[in-house]
């Protein structure tokens, strides 16, 4: 009769091990998703700041806006190697300056009469949209991942290894009013 108990224990252990290994698998996959999303966001932020710099030197905006955009875009590019929080602050600052500079639809439409400016503004708008998408997808992955991280069993059995609990990327990524449609 003891055999029954042993068999039961074996089944429980196997099920438990299966549970742990699939959870570890989920975690691993989410970490990879976070990695690729971070990579994508990185690329889009770089693209955004380079378009911003192009816009500032193209002499389509007033000198004050151009100067501010150039400076914040430059800061944003510099911050890449630094601390994440500093980087988020720098990128948000760029968003804010762009939002100030391009806040009026009619004014921006006037600028668009110049084909070069229109091209640059379209590209800027599309890269801002892509930053917004990348950030949202990254944060989605981060939230799903940290939910698993917090699970008791995951912590007890150290399923996440030494990977830190990921954090969401909170920055201002609104589209400037003048560039058109944004989701509410």
């Amino acid at each position, binding site marked *: 009769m003891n055999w029954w108990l042993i068999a039961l224990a074996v089944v429980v252990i196997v099920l438990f091990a299966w549970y742990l290994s*699939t959870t570890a*698998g*989920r975690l691993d*996959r*989410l970490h990879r*998703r976070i*990695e*690729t*999303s971070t*990579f*994508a*966001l990185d*690329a*889009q932020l770089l693209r955004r700041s380079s378009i911003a710099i192009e816009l500032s030197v193209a002499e389509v905006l007033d000198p004050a806006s151009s100067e501010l955009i150039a400076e914040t875009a430059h800061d944003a590019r510099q911050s890449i190697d630094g601390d994440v929080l500093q980087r988020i602050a720098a990128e948000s600052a760029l968003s804010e300056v762009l939002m100030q500079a391009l806040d009026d639809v009619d004014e921006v439409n006037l600028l668009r009469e110049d084909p070069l400016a229109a091209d640059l503004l379209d590209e800027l708008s*599309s890269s801002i*949209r*892509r930053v*917004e*998408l*990348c950030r*949202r*997808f990254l*944060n*989605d*992955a981060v*939230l*799903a991942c940290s*939910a698993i991280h917090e699970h008791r069993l995951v912590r007890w059995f150290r399923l996440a290894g030494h990977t830190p609990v990921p954090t969401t990327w909170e920055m201002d990524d609104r589209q400037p009013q003048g560039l058109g*449609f944004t*989701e509410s």
Partner: protein
Amino acid sequence: MVCPYAWDVPGGVRSHVADLAAELRERGHFVDILAPLDDDSALADEVTNGGKPIAVRYNGSVARLNFGLRATRQARRWIQNGNFDLIHVHEPVAPGLSLLCIWVADGPIVATWHSSNPHSRILASVNRLAQTAMEKISGRIAVSEDARRTLVAHVGGDAVLIPNGVRVQAFAHPGFHPAMNNPGHSLLFLGRLDEPRKGLSVLLEAMPAIIAADPHVHLYVAGPGDLEDIQDDMAPEIRDHVTLLGLVTEQEKAQALYSADVYVAPNTGAESFGIVLIEAMAAGTAVLAADLPAFARVLSNGRAGRLFPNEDPQALADAAVALLADPQERQRLVAAGSERVRRFDWGVVVDDVLAVYDSVTASGERVTEDLRGQIMGRFSSGLGQGGR
């Protein structure tokens, strides 16, 4: 692209997938569609056959889906052979090919939520496999606020909102509807006749007042339902001013919209998007709609079409009379409408979808078979062969 519902049967998700694929192909992208097919021969060059669909009760109605071991094997083979840069599944929580593809694939996966679905909560919390599948989606899209709320509440996380597209070109200049010849005084209603939420009764209640102000007015009613019932219910004095067109094809719908002077949408609720308003604007018809939030959004709060207080026949009558008497105002609305409708053109919508694709494929990773599921996969393909 994966459509979980049978390709032989017309439906919202199916036409969304077909239109999106057509637009992407036009831009030089390679798109392969995987969908269940009832009749293998007829549509085989349009889609990859994902197996025979089975009618099941799902989410409050009968859906034609396919699932099971053979479908899983089919999905796996499709992923293996396709060597895709990305897969885009539609309605990922429906128990069909979309869910299966997510399960067997690894890499960039985009999913679009179409409808609100009260069952997915059970699915996500009870079924661990389904939950794992949801975690594999790198980019989530919702077609409406409702669909997005469903997703947020049941699966967690967030989604980007990309509205349904309308093939604006298909509605521009479709020709006149043969049964509609009352230019200048034609009203149109579209929708199921016996569905109270579509609001036909509100419009019929408003008719006497409209007829009193404009004796030439004629209301055309297009949509499925018991025509005799409606005929019998109508007051005799309005019967001569109403023509029932019955169920119309897509082509006839475009013609009816094009022939009408004012399209009236008296819907009383439960509209998440209002695609028909966009179709009306694309056809160049002035729109008069109930002030539901979804309609107000589509009509830019009344700039691209008139709004009237919901379920108020008197207000509807006043607005309709004013519009019928003022061709210039109608023209202004039509102009504003065709401007507004550009936002919903597939061309613009596809730009957004491509932006999503870019954001999930930036690392250059491709879609591969998910090896983690392989033990299960071997098991299922073995069983599937054994069962044949």
